[in-house]
């Protein structure tokens, strides 16, 4: 009898060790290791010495300072614009009575379904030299450069801004607003005296996210940045153009600094938001107020129209015979011959499936183990799991090249394989998946787990009968999140593709670079179709799970 119990306890301990060990090993080999390699490369001087020589020469180059200044100006401008537009959308959907609320939020979220180059492509079809608006109005605009990039980046960052600000606006106690009203406060005053101060940390948090997303984005800059050089394109140029890995590493490290800072401040802001928030006693239901709701409806829908038109035009253009001269509909652009045809798209689907499956399993195992381990062990692992979010995709991609393309290392065999692409994507989006998993695990009632344990269930049974079923919706969400992000990402994988193994977003970029804009649009449309299909599947599975549970 005691023997059986001991065996069961031992097997539990082994399971727990595996749950912790495998994800931790993955994090160390595929995240910490490459990151350390970038740092090492940045410190390795051409003559083999260790020092800050590379930093000195990067800082001495005028290009670098121009790119840095441009990156900062661009990121700050995008932050200002996207924050304002995000506030309008979030306020309209949370605190006003606007028609088509769900549709509005869906429209703003569209860029999440598309590779980040698509905003740029759409703007080119609208405002480029052969753009629809340019031709119709007969005006000459140069969309390549600051303004084009600003619009593209704003569209790209807007969904996340709206998500964060809307969350901050959601928790409101109607009584607080009524108390203010009875004290004589007008609607406008209530907004400035109560609403705005109370979402201060949400706004701050959104600002940091927008800033980080913008300063690290590569896709938009590659399509529509034109001569407006920024740090992201600078790294790409150094590495892919000039094969100067050490310099690329230096710029990568320097790019890491603002994102780490923004990331740290964002965490602080999120925690503060928690401290000052009061639990909503009576949820706020906005009453129909024409003076507020009519202008907000118009404003919100005008903003939401931007991503719809920008992405819609890409889909439309992919079917047009010869943009902008012959608008007959055709499928001819879908016959993509160059850069491997549709091979990269299938590779992307496989890579994304791999990243999603491995990521979900590893995250669940890690979360399950962390919940059962002492705090002293959990804390550092938790911090390590937050770090990937602070590392720009470009830096991660560069780190992977430097690490896995180094001859003589045991893991070199991985270079140039789809597996490495999958691993890279998994690490790139690790943090968001981790946070979602942990939130889900925290909601599993501990009483239920304790009941199962006291009934004699070992850990494997517990996972199968209690934790697993309870976590199913969360895991489905994590799976599809990883899949969809992996389908559209460009910044990290752009360094890892080879002639034989490539991905969809790189194909879109290559087609666009080669001047086959319509084919790029067709390719982007196919990619979006896969992502939309995945989004539909996610909804379906969540609904089925909801009914089953």
């Amino acid at each position: 009898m005691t023997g059986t119990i001991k065996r069961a306890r031992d097997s539990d301990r082994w399971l727990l060790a595996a749950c912790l060990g495998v994800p931790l090993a993955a994090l160390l080999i595929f995240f910490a290791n490459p990151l350390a390699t970038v740092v090492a490369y940045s410190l390795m001087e051409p003559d083999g010495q260790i020092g800050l020589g590379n930093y000195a020469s990067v800082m001495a180059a005028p290009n670098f300072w121009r790119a840095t200044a441009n990156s900062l100006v661009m990121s700050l401008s995008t932050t200002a614009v996207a924050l304002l537009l995000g506030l309008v959308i979030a306020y309209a959907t949370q605190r006003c009575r606007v028609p088509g609320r769900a549709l509005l939020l869906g429209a703003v979220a569209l860029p999440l379904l598309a590779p980040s180059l698509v905003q740029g492509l759409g703007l080119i079809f609208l405002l480029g030299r052969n753009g629809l608006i340019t031709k119709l109005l007969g005006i000459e605009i140069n969309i390549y450069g600051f303004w084009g990039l600003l619009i593209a980046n704003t569209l790209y960052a807007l969904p996340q801004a709206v998500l964060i600000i809307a969350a901050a606006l959601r928790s409101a106690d109607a009584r607080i607003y009524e108390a203010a009203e009875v004290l004589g406060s007008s609607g406008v005053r209530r907004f400035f005296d109560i609403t705005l101060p109370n979402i201060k940390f949400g706004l701050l948090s959104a600002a940091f996210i927008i800033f980080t997303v913008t300063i690290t984005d590569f896709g938009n800059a590659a399509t529509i940045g034109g001569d407006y050089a920024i740090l992201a394109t600078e790294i790409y140029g150094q590495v892919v153009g000039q094969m100067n890995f050490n310099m690329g590493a230096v710029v990568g490290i320097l790019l890491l600094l603002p994102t780490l800072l923004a990331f740290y401040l964002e965490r602080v802001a999120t925690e503060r938001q928690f401290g000052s928030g009061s639990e909503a006693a009576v949820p706020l239901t906005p009453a129909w107020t024409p003076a507020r709701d009519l202008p907000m409806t118009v404003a919100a829908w005008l903003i939401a129209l931007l991503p719809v038109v920008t992405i819609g035009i890409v889909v439309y253009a992919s079917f047009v015979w010869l943009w902008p001269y012959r608008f007959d509909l055709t499928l001819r652009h879908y016959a993509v011959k160059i850069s491997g045809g549709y091979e990269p798209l299938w590779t992307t689907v496989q890579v994304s499936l791999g990243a999603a499956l491995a990521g979900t399993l590893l995250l669940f195992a890690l979360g399950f183990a962390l919940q059962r381990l002492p705090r002293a062990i959990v804390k550092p692992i938790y911090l390590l799991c937050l770090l990937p979010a602070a590392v720009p995709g470009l830096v991660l991609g560069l780190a992977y090249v430097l690490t896995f393309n180094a001859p003589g290392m045991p893991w070199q065999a991985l270079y140039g394989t789809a597996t490495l692409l999958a691993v890279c994507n998994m690490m790139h989006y690790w943090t968001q998946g981790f946070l979602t998993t942990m939130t889900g695990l925290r909601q599993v009632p501990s009483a239920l787990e304790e009941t199962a344990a006291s009934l004699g269930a070992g850990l494997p049974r517990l996972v199968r009968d209690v934790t697993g079923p309870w976590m199913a919706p969360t895991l489905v969400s994590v799976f599809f999140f990883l899949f969809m992000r992996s389908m559209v990402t460009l910044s990290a994988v752009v360094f890892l593709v080879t002639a034989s193994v490539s991905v969809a977003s790189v194909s879109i970029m290559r087609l666009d670079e080669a001047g086959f804009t319509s084919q790029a649009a067709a390719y982007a449309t196919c990619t979006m179709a896969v992502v939309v299909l995945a989004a539909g599947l996610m909804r379906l599975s969540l609904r089925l799970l909801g009914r089953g549970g």
Partner: protein
Amino acid sequence: MQLQIRNLRKAYGATIALDGVSFTASAPQFVCLLGPSGCGKTTLLRMIAGLAQPDGGELRLGTQDLTLVPARRRGFGIVFQSYSLFPNMTVAQNIGYGLRIRGDAPERIKARVGILLDMIRLPQLADRYPWQLSGGQQQRVALARALAPEPKLLLLDEPLSALDAKVRTELRTEIRSLQQQLGILTLMVTHDQEEALTLADRIVCMRQGAIAQAGTPEELYSRPTNRFVADFMGLSNMIAPEIVRRLAPHLLDGDAPEADRIACVRPEDIRLDASGTGARIQQVQFLGNLSRLRVDWPGGELIVEETGYTQLRPGMEVGVAFKADRCAWVSAS
């Protein structure tokens, strides 16, 4: 300053929240709107505040028709159950908010806030934020915030319900003394009859959107006009007229009761006589300051309360005596 409410009506779809409510109240009364949840008492308070609009009826303060005045121009003070302090403002800023809206000079606001902080006995907490305060402290700040602009009418929406028992009784006394000191007409919504009994000059007891009975606490307790009020105001023994006629004819006082009326006798108005006969003790509960007994009586089961500790024990035979002047005849429905 007199508040006049006449035939106020309100329906939310098919549900009738207020079904023709009328009453008047004037300073310096403390009026409690008492009733179970869903009786319309909160709707009535919100209507007076201007936070809900009536479908019909009159609402006047003095000569002013309130239905034409938006909430923020009525100049009332309101306190909610959930404290509802502005989380982004300090205690002092919360209290001074109404004055700031009004456009008072900063030094005037400071002086007034100081007076109110002393009044609620929390001058040391002026620079704290709401989340740093206990529930009782938050509610006192909410009270000060409502009183700061010297409102014509103070509205309290279950202000004590979220607090624990000890703080509740403390704050209850404090609210009452503040109200009397300021002489302000106050309306409080509550579902707690004990709270209403101890605080109110007048109680408006509501049921299903209508007034069941309005009067002084003493009237509602001792002379309820209907069974609903009698039950709501505390424990009582309801005795059918034929039983009274048979077993306690002196309660009839010679008159025949009106049709559809039953006798309501409070537990403390029945005396048990250990040397008497005719009834038997079933159960004794000792509640500290009183003892509650269940007595088997030929007319049915009676609940009797005696002050302090009783010597009576289950199974003992006792005689039952009703205090003649303490019986109310209430409508049975």
